[in-house]
Structure formats: C-alpha cells, structure tokens
C-alpha cells in the first residue's frame, strides 16, 4: 500500500517537473514548427540564473526567506526574456521558412554554443540555491516523507498548465495563436502579424524553459550538462503527447512520470527503458502521439 501511494506521489511530482520542462517546447513547436534542441540550454540558463541570484541573496545578509521564491521566478523571467529575444531576433528570424529538420540542426548548433557560453559565464563549479527547498520542510505520511517544495511544484505546474490553456482558449491573443497553429497560411491571409506572434511564442517558450530550470534549481546541484539531460526527456514527453499540444504534454508527462515511478518501485531493472518504451508503444499505436492531429495533405 505504502509503495502504491509512493508511486502516485513520486509519479505526480516527477510528472509535474516533466510538464514544466516540456510545456515551453510544445508551445514553440505548435506555433513555429521548431523542435528546439536548445530548450535544455534555456532550462540550464534559468537554473544558473536562479541559483546564482538566490545564492547571492542568502550569502549577503539574510533577508526574509519568502523573497527568495520571488527571486527564483524573477531570475527565470528575466533570463528567459533576454535570451529568448536575442535568439529569436538575432538568429531564428534569419532562418524562418527553412526545412523543419534544418531548424532542429540550427537549434543543435545553438545548444553547442550556449553550453560553452554558460561555462564562460558561470564556470564549472556547482551552484546551489537550496534554501527555498529546505525552507518549506516536509510532510510525513508514515514511512514516506515528502518534501513540501515538491508538492508545491505539483501545484505550480498544474496552475501553469491551466494558465496556458486559459490563455490559449480564452483570450484574443490565444485565439490568434491558435489560428496560427491551425493554419499558418490562412492566419497570414487574415492579417495576423505572424512575425510578432513568433517572437511572443518563442520568448514565452524560452521563459517557460528557464522557469522550469529555476524551479528545479533549489533541489539540485546546478552544474554543466544539466540541460543536455532534459532535452531527450522533454522531447519524449512532447512526442508522446502529440507535438504542439499542451494537454498532450500534460498527459505525456503523467504517463512517463507514473510509469517511471512504478518501475523504480516494482521493477528497477526496467527504469532505464521506461521512457523509450512508453514512447515506442504510444507511437506504434498512435503515430502522431496521443493528441497529435493527423494531417492529410490536400491534393
């Protein structure tokens, strides 16, 4: 019983983290048709920004702890915004209209550049921002002790998902964006400023990536290479859910999160294969992912 409860709790926590990481990726793909390999780097930049800012805050005269949560989010927003605008305006804008796969490679080049760029800015020593993580304490459920920060993360992730959904479904800007997702040519014909929508979307995506990194930073040691590790995970979640679908990313994250937690508790030897196994299975039966749209070419 305890382990079933543990699977549910661990699975949801992991799923909420996966969703945070994958949301930005799927938004960018949905609107811009760019599968962004550098998404992991934005995650890492968010983590580094947050960890260095929060670390600095606590090392220099302890203010109230709650400020550090604002700093976490603030660091991510600023970092995501700056990097997003620079990359979109400075690089991607030159490349629009190129082949989808070529865009993957371009972002791969960006990844190589950003990984070393971060090393130049932050070095290779670990950064920590553990105070926000340990500050919230933990809750005991029998043998199982759960970090409150992790539980809060589930809430944040759910709120973020709902917020994104509401923004897409309930606001005018969201409607325009959906039009672009649905049919770019018609959207252009209707007078949508696609260029502007691209900038907004890309910056939103990078900011989400940076936010995921910033919210993860307190629980980990921020070191070189953390971004590389999340890319394939995020890709898998997004592909499982259906590229470009927010709801799909949420379901994909839950599926992977729960499967992984179950494997850790019941069949640890399969843990390494879970994510690829789930992805292969889903794609074998639903080639476009769970919520992907099958597009029949008009002839």
């Amino acid at each position: 019983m305890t382990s079933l409860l543990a699977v549910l709790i661990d699975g949801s926590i992991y799923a909420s983290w996966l969703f945070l990481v994958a949301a930005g990726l799927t938004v960018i793909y949905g609107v811009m048709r760019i599968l962004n390999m550098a998404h992991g780097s934005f995650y890492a930049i968010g983590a580094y920004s947050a960890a260095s800012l929060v670390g600095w805050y606590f090392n220099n005269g302890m203010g109230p702890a709650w400020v550090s949560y604002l700093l976490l989010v603030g660091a991510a927003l600023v970092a995501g915004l700056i990097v997003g605008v620079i990359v979109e305006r400075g690089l991607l804008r030159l490349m629009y209209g190129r082949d989808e796969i070529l865009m993957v490679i371009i972002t791969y080049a960006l990844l190589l550049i950003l990984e070393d760029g971060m090393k130049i800015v932050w070095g290779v020593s670990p950064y920590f921002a553990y105070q926000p993580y340990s500050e919230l304490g933990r809750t005991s459920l029998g043998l199982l002790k759960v970090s409150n920060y992790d539980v809060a993360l589930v809430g944040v992730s759910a709120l973020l998902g709902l917020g994104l959904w509401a923004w897409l479904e309930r606001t005018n800007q969201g409607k325009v964006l959906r039009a672009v997702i649905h049919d770019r040519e018609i959207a252009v014909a209707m007078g949508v400023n696609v260029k502007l929508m691209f900038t907004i979307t890309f910056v939103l995506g990078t900011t989400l990536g940076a936010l995921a990194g910033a919210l993860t930073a307190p629980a980990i040691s921020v070191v070189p290479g953390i971004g590389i590790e999340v890319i394939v995970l995020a890709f898998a979640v997004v592909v499982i859910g259906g590229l470009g679908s927010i709801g799909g990313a949420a379901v994909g994250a839950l599926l992977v999160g729960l499967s992984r937690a179950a494997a850790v508790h019941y069949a640890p030897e399969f843990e390494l294969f879970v994510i690829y196994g789930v992805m292969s299975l889903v794609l074998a039966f639903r080639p476009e992912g769970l919520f992907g749209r099958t597009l029949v070419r008009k002839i």
Partner: protein
Amino acid sequence: MRLDKTEISLGLVALACVLFGFVSPGWLIFLLTIALAKALVVQGVVMQMRSGLVSFGQGLFYCIGGYTVGMGGQFFGIHDAIAALSLGMFVAIVIAMLLGLLLTRYREIFFAMLSLAFSMILFGILVKSQELGSTDGFNVHDWTLFGWAPEAGAGSQHTVFTMTVVAGLIVAVLLHRYTKAGVGVICEAVRENEVRVEYLGLSPRWLLYGNYVAAAAVSALGGGLTALATGHVDPEMAYWTTSGEFVFIALLGGLGHVAAPFIAAIVFSFVRTYAIEFVPHTWQMILGFTLLAVIIFLPKGLWSLVSREKTGERA
C-alpha cells in the same frame, strides 16, 4: 563494369590516400581512419536524408557494427577482419529489416525521435550488460586479415587505414551508382512528393524500407572499422549525441555528391581536434559556430564550394 569519370576520380583519390598513408605521421593516419570510417556512417544518414528522413539514431547501426566486430573476436572466435565486418553488416541488416517495418511508417520529426529511441534502447541494454563491460566497453584486438596478423602498432594501424580507404572506395562507387539507380532516385522522389510516387503505383514505404536497410549496412561497416581502428567499443556509440554528430557531418558536407561526407568528416575532425588543442574549454562553441556558418553561408554544404557552377546538370 564500365567506370564513369567520377568513379575513376574516386579510385585515384583513394589510391593517393593509400600512398599518402605510407608517408604521413601516425596520428594523421588514425585521424583519417576514424574520419573515413565515420563518413561511412554519415553516408547512411545522407542516404536517408535524400529520401527526406533524418535519423537521429544512426548510432544504433554504428554501435551494432562495432560491437559485432568486438564480440566476434572476443566471444565467437571470429578473428578475420573481413568476416567480422561482414557479420556486423549482416546483423545490422537483420535488425534494420525488423525495425524498418515500424519506422517506415513515420516521417519527419517522428521518424527522427523513434530512430533515436531505438538507439537509446540499445544503449540501455549495453549499459545493463555487465559481461560486455557496461559503459566501459571492451577492447578489440588480435584480429587478422585472411589469416595474416598485422604486427601491432603502426602495422595494424596502417592495415586498418588501407581497409577503410578500400571500404570507403567500394561504398562510394556503389552509392554513386545507387543514387542514380531506381531506388536511389525514387527515394529522392519520395522526399519531393510522396503522393505522386504513390500514384505512380509505387510503394514509398517499400522504397524507404530498402533504403533504410541499405543505409544500416553501410553504417554498420563504418562502426566495425572504427572498432578495429580504435581497438575499443563502448555504449557511447549508440548514445544520441553520437548520432547527432553524424547528422552534423552530413549537413556539413551536403547531399551534393557521394564524396561530400568523406570531405566533411575529415574537415570536422580537423576543426574539432584543433579546437580542442587551442581552446580546450570552448571547443563545442567553435563547432556550433562552424555549423551555423555552414547553414547560413553554404546551405548546400561544403560540397557547394566545389560545385558552385552546376545547376542544370544533376549528379
């Protein structure tokens, strides 16, 4: 068998390479061996790119080729290099025939991700296989060539180099023909307009399947040669970043000519090795900027430097 001009030039360049091997320093021979062997894997990536599919999992066959050669010598007493390389290609073909059944249903990003997933599953299996050394891998040695054991060191290195050049030449000539033959051209047709191919009464899936299996064999050959040259195999060969490197080299060279992957692989190796020497802390950044520069200024790859003037006539 009539050879056309391209084939004769390829043969001459290969001959020049072999001769050059006798006068060049050991590190250079090794660098060229690895570059040419990897170029064979890249040929596999390029074959699929021509048909519109980008494999982010070609490391799968690179790894299968390498491990088959290694395991053949280590566990099954297959010490003859040619036999081991052939076995590697055979295993790759069998696995590709199975995976191809599923993979040819997918296009674009889904194909890329699924091929990546299969490669990562092999990586996982190898990491779990402690008898194969897990992530440390194992060494490949004591191989022979038609019963002759090249002396360790420079002798064996030189033999692998020559074998790689010869294998590269054979593959290049075959691919040169392949790209002009039915499956080769029609695979490009599939990339350009799959619906039309279907309405010509052809099965795009069958074509892609044949192409996928052929590409797997070529890539496995490259993996086997790499294993012989480095004398070591490990699961990193199947890791997705390895496959990413192959795509990198493929784009560097472009799809313009069968020689492009070879040139690109050599250029890549030089850029990387000197970047590591001169800027050991930021060599990846150098590679990133190189890739961006190629994409922006040479959208058809390095080969467009050689063949600027060609437009009407197609290879």
